[in-house]
């Protein structure tokens, strides 16, 4: 496992996490969507408050939503992973 993914924090999450995006290096213990969420939980108070099961946030990999029961989806170098707060369009 090598390479990095591009992680985006959209809309309100950009304010909460204090940045719009970052690069994250993949590793044997940082290889799936779930690993990335656990990694953020370990490093970010905002992640522990916002990225919890009770809240209507979503995560998308390469523009496709990943449902909560598929967080074991593997990440590949160059993937774009976006964290979306609850949507409010229309």
């Amino acid at each position, binding site marked *: 496992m090598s390479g990095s993914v591009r992680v985006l924090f959209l809309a309100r999450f950009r304010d909460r996490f204090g940045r719009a995006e970052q690069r994250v290096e993949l590793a044997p213990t940082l290889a799936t969507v779930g690993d990335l969420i656990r990694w953020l939980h370990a490093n970010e108070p905002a992640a522990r408050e916002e990225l919890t099961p009770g809240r209507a946030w979503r995560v998308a990999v390469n523009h496709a939503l990943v449902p909560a029961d598929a967080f074991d989806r593997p990440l590949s170098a160059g993937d774009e992973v976006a964290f*979306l707060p609850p949507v409010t369009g229309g």
Partner: protein
Amino acid sequence: MGIEVRVGEADFDVGAEIVRLRRGRPEVGAVASFVGCVRDVNDGAAVSKLVLEHYPGMTEKALEDIGAEACRRWQVIDLLIVHRVGPLAPMDQIVLVVVTSGHRGEAFAACEFVMDYLKTRAPFWKRESTPEGERWVDARESDDQAAARW
């Protein structure tokens, strides 16, 4: 059957869009449309302006997927979704859905389905300006319930 999606800052003319979708389509017996607009009050606060942000690249795909799902469920002839982004003010139009079909039941249902799914699945976010400052609009639980009906 055609699905057309447009995301951008430009306003739209619902009348002109309906005329365009009906042109050369004598099989259209029903046209259902929905227009969403910016209100001047939200959650008890006066709203002076609003900025609609989205996730470029994913937005169009999400809307096309919602349109395709509507066309799988109902007999749709054409389906148009227009969603505006950027700065908007009260009275402005935000979103347009037009569905043409042979009969009204299919057109009504598909149009309402698209709006209910769009409200919970399309990556748009509203940021309002109120007398207390700027704020991100909260998602509504009633929107999740509306989408779950389908």
